[in-house]
């Protein structure tokens, strides 16, 4: 029995961890500090505040909004808080590995602690706030769809999506709690079941067809709820699945910019609640435990709780306080009176299967266009590391170890460039053999010449146009190690002549100039990743975004 259990948990955890590799700000792809929002390098490579005993907290990115309150509590408790941000699924995996670098975890939902704490390290878990996972839909569209002032089911939303009336953004189900919760809600709704999702259900051909059609409506994805919100604010999208508190936050910004706010829809057959537990990880140091408890007590104090509620998080299941009533604006569809009755999360083994099949089968196929810098400066170590990184991604037996294997129908193209496009290589299909051939062709290239990222990115845009992009999650993944000639216009023309939204993610290497890359990312609602420490890890991080 014990063996079965261990095996099951291991499977659950490994699969859950899927491509959940530090995609979030503060992960192992730190970028330029001090900048924020999409289009820039990591908006947050962690946060620290206060003096005293240090408590290192690994937290979901949604808690970034609480930093002032955290600082305040740290001062009062006389502790020094260090926050690192990762997705809930990553937090689960970190916990499973012993969470050596952390004294506490703070994921979006308790479930990830239960699934991750195989080593019995956690104690003093307390829910800090509550927020349901909801749909935020442009108000006028919500009205058009008849979603205002009425009970809406996931099925209703699905018909709007499959009828082409609405597209939406959601986080990756294999990385983020909000994406995983929404996805499970979709499965139940499509199956017409209320409980007891099974592995057999996932094999139902009708369900498979419907969930693919539904996920085809996902316009953009991300590894983090907070980043999704930022992405949403810079782009022009119909709707997003996110926490109620982040929709409130987005609306405050939209309204201040004179834009249309989002209307919150609580699908009654697909709702889930994040309970945001802050939980101690015991590495045997009594002083740290003591300091943690002081900090936690401050965070749970009525004063802090009221401040937390003012950010749009709920602090009880029974409505909101009179003081913060205005934050939960009913004109935005926010309903604090209704009983939040969430769906049931499936058993851990079924959940693992569901997330695995999402990754390999259900989500929209990726269209990856790798723009790889083969300028002279790449000679030596740079070239070696680049080829090694590509081997990790393209050779499927390597990719499998990191659960990064190609999904069904995936397209992989490489644009090798220096100051011009050297050559364009395409994998014939999504087979292991075709991807290995692509790798071998890349590996045969030798570096030389100058650098022009703009020409390469423009070429990538041209290549992408050959596909029906509504059927793919497209991304240009640009890796460069130096200063490029500033041929901005060439890319601008490509951008202007296309009417689709293809993000240009960049990975910096060597002396790459982040400002050029950030500009590209900003223009295309993407981000910049730092590949100087670990190029393979940076590629893995980017891969998670499509």
């Amino acid at each position, binding site marked *: 029995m014990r063996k079965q259990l261990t095996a099951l948990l291991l499977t659950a955890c490994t699969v859950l961890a899927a491509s959940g590799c530090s995609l979030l700000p503060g992960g192992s792809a730190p970028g330029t500090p001090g900048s924020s929002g999409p289009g820039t390098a990591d908006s947050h490579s962690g946060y620290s505040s206060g003096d005293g005993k240090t408590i290192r907290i690994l937290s979901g990115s949604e808690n970034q909004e609480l930093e002032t309150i955290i600082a305040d509590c740290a001062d009062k408790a006389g502790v020094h808080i260090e926050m690192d941000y990762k997705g809930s699924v990553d937090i689960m995996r970190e916990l499973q590995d012993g969470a050596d670098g952390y004294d506490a975890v703070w994921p979006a939902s308790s479930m990830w602690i*239960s699934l991750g*704490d195989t080593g019995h390290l956690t104690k003093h878990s*307390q*829910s800090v706030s509550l927020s349901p996972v909801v749909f935020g839909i442009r108000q006028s569209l919500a009205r058009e769809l008849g979603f205002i002032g009425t009970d809406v089911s996931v099925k209703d939303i699905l018909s709007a999506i499959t009828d082409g009336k609405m597209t939406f953004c959601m986080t990756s189900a294999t990385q983020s709690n909000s994406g995983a919760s929404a996805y499970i809600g979709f499965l139940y709704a499509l199956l017409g079941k*209320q409980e007891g999702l099974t592995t057999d259900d996932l094999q139902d051909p009708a369900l498979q067809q419907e969930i693919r059609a539904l996920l085809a409506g996902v316009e953009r994805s991300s590894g983090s709820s907070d980043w999704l919100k930022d992405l949403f604010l810079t782009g022009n999208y119909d709707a997003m699945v996110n926490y109620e508190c982040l929709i409130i936050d987005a609306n405050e910004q939209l309204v201040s910019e004179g834009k249309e706010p989002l209307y919150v829809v609580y699908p009654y057959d697909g709702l889930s609640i994040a309970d945001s537990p802050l939980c101690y990880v*015991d590495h045997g140091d009594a002083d740290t435990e003591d300091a943690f408890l002081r900090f936690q007590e401050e965070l749970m104090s009525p004063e802090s709780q009221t401040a937390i509620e003012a950010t749009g998080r709920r602090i009880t*299941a029974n409505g909101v306080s009179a003081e913060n009533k205005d934050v939960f604006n009913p004109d935005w569809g926010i309903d604090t009176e209704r009983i939040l009755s969430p769906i049931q999360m499936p*058993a851990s083994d079924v959940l693992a299967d569901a997330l695995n099949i999402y990754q390999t089968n259900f989500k929209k196929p990726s269209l990856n266009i790798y723009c790889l810098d083969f300028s002279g400066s790449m000679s030596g170590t740079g070239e070696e590391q680049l080829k090694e990184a590509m081997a990790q991604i393209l050779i499927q037996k390597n990719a499998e170890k990191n659960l990064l294997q190609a999904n069904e129908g995936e397209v992989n193209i490489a644009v090798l460039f220096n100051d011009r496009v050297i050559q364009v290589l395409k994998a014939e299909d999504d087979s292991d053999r075709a991807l290995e051939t692509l790798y071998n062709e890349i590996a045969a290239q030798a570096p030389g010449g100058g650098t022009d990222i703009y020409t390469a990115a423009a070429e990538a845009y041209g290549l992408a146009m050959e596909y029906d992009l509504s059927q793919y999650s497209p991304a240009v993944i640009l890796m460069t190690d130096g200063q490029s000639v500033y041929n901005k216009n060439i890319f601008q023309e490509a951008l202007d002549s296309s009417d689709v939204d293809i993000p240009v993610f960049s990975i910096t290497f060597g002396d790459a100039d982040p400002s050029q890359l950030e500009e590209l990312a900003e223009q295309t609602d993407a981000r910049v990743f730092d590949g100087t420490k670990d190029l393979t890890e940076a590629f893995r991080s980017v891969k998670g975004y499509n």
Partner: protein
Amino acid sequence: MKKKIIGLILLLVIMMVTGGIYLLKGSAPETVVVNGYVGGEKIEFLEDPEVQSILQERYGIRADYAKAGSLDMMTADMDGMDYLFPSSSIAEEYYEDLHGKPQQSEIILNTPIVLYTHRAVLEAFDSQGLITENSGAYQIDMAGLVSLIQNDTSWADIGLAELYGNISVDTTDPARSNSGNMFAALLANVLNGGQTLTEDNLREILPELQSIFGKLGYMETSSSDLFSQFLRMGIGAKPVIAGYESQLIEYAAIYPDEYKNIEDDIVMLYPTPTVWSTHVLLALDENGQKLLDALLDEDLQALAWTKHGFRTGNYSTVSTGGDIAAKGVAADITQVTQVPSYDVMKIIIESLQ
């Protein structure tokens, strides 16, 4: 040579200083730190400053712990562990099955399995004729509840349209945590007509039990986490949970202000029949034995009831007024069925994985 002498002198000085400190400390017993795995529901008890000071002053013990489910802990890494403190005799038998007899074992605390719910759900159950009241304590007819669950009755069907889905009882994972395990034992007995399930009827009952648990989906691994989520997330998230009687009594004693806010809404339902959860301490070595002996201290046993809600040898029948804050506590637990044997439970647990 010189170095050796200096080393020797240093050693002597250290010995003298340490000896001095020893003498200064007088007759207080040397503190032994005792380590073990504990089911989440007993953590407040062990962390109670009053409990800690009795352990320290009378017995020279500081009880440290790691949280683990009652069954999980039996297969956990026991390196450096002096004791295990699971919540059932089944867990003890499981230990013996895996590792042989422990150095010593003893029942320290008892508490019955109960259901926790909200007032609105109580009323809906009452409308179905499932509830009887006995001097302020509510009892629920388990056979009736099980048949509602088996028939996929929705909350809306019994007048609670604001709750999504079918009637169910949230429980911890029976394969990993004791309250879930005990609840599975209770359901098995209820499905067996209220009689303790034996190997005779096992084959017949198993599929029914599997079907009930198959509807539950994801289950928490700790009773204390489940209870705090129940209190925290409202009627919509967890309309009914299975737990221990001790949990509410303890909550009311330790958090009187918070309890005041919920006392009108949160109700305890005593299943008829129910099962006892017996909290057994397994001493793995001498230090574990010391803790075992200490926990039988009369004052600790009294604290265990009044502050933490565990019925102990002296508190199996209780006066419900005065000494405890929680409302709706039954004076005694009468309709109890025996938990099925370890062999039967083993098959049940395996079938529920």
